[in-house]
């Protein structure tokens, strides 16, 4: 397991996906995360969204943002944590692969 996998796993644990939401497999969202050296999440902002605009896409982006906030503190890698400070951590969410297998 790489150090990045620890963050990936932690956030995944808190990401509630609704597989019945219309178009969920077509959505993708990139979040910019402001995080402290100890992994405490200070702020999360949406920097990019893909998929048909509307309530479902907003709910998808909200859900991703909520997952990052709930996952705080993030398990920060010892050697790379300084690269992730000052909003330089980008978390990119999509459920394509996960839901593709179910359909």
């Amino acid at each position: 397991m790489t150090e990045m996998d620890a963050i990936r796993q932690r956030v995944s644990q808190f990401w509630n996906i609704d597989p019945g939401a219309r178009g969920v497999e077509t959505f993708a969202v990139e979040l910019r995360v402001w995080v402290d050296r100890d992994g405490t999440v200070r702020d999360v902002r949406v920097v990019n969204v893909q998929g048909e605009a509307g309530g479902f896409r907003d709910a998808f982006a909200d859900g991703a943002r909520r997952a990052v906030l709930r996952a705080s503190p993030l398990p920060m890698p010892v050697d790379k944590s300084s690269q992730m400070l000052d909003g330089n951590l980008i978390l990119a969410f999509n459920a394509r692969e996960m839901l593709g297998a179910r359909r």
Partner: protein
Amino acid sequence: MIHDSFPLKRRALLAGAAASLALPSVAQSQVRIDITRGRVDPLPTAVSPFHGEGRDTATGAEIAKVISNNLERSGLFRPIDSRAFTNTPAQLAAAAPQFTTWRQINAAVLIHGTVATLPDGRLRVEFRLWDVFGEAQMEGRVYTTAASNWRRIAHIVSDQVYKRVTGEDGYFDTRIVYVSESGPGQRRIKRLALMDQDGANHRFLTDGRELVLTPRFSPTAQEITYLAYVQTGNNPNLLRPRVYLLNIDTGQREVVGDFPGMTFAPRFSPDGNRVIMSMAQSGTTDVYTMDLRTRQQARITNHNSINTSPSYSPDGRQIVFNSDRGGSQQIYTMSASGDNVQRISFARGLYGTPVWSPRGDLIAFTKQTEGEFFIGVMRPDGSGERLLTRAFLVEAPTWAPNGRVLMYFRQGASDSRGNGGNPRLYSIDLTGYNEREILTPADGSDPAWSPLLP
């Protein structure tokens, strides 16, 4: 009449999202991590009793209970045991939630509110929905209504929460009409019954003297059409199918018409001006419409075969129905005037009772193959068939108005005297998860889901 005032204050979570779309994409110095797996779990949700003084305290607790049960039943929310709650309803009414303590019990969202009886006797209900980890209000509204309407307010609040969190319209402020069945197998008494979608306010609409079938809501949710077998001459054994229109609010009942031969399953057109049904005449069964004002009939299919179970698309331009014209019972679509007939089901088995989703994107159906019944969905072009549930008998799928949940009845095998195998109502999510029995006082079949109440 429920008065819905403008949102109290709404700080959208995504404020700023639109502006930041123009930002350059991820630069080299940044660390990017892809998150491609999540959990298909319900969202941990805290529903606090609504705060009220005196006898409003009890109403506040009841409102929260109805909301909590609605959200839990949807399968998308997991209400947290209220004994773990860290702020009292009065504290929540007085100041913003102490988010740290709600985070400790892992509540992702928090719902609370207040209830107050106004001097004129009406009820004022206010609710707020909070993003606990984002520490922001997601929704907040005030409703003023007759005190007896508290349950509807709870459903409307549930719909608001559901919509804000899932992005999908809610379906809690709705009713179900169905056929209540009691008595031994060969002398079954069938009565029309009406209830809220959560089973509350159950009442019977007919007394059981007539055999009733296939009730359906009008698009206004105030009228029901159904089929009854009635004695029209002197012979008590000679029953004719009669289509009725029943106003739920006034109890007024109108005969749409007596029809010769076998008549099946009238449904409303989306504009509510017509009913569509099938009738058997001289060896064939065809689809007909009847204009409810002029009572004029129009024949939509004209084919030497059995054509039944018509259901309109939500825009009223197309009709889905089943037909044995190709040698076995399959699903077909056609234009509202009967042109451009296309077969859409092709897999093994017999397909029946197609129902177009109110969302337009799917058609629910029943399928019979290898001695079992299934309920499934497919796209209107016939692609993407998915089977959701199976049993000895599953029949009569009906859509929640948001096109997300299906209700139907399920029945086991009965003995030689027709006893046992009692039909019961069930609901299931579009994903095939969260199948649940809908509790009714007696057996139940043929459910129909209303649109959202006006």
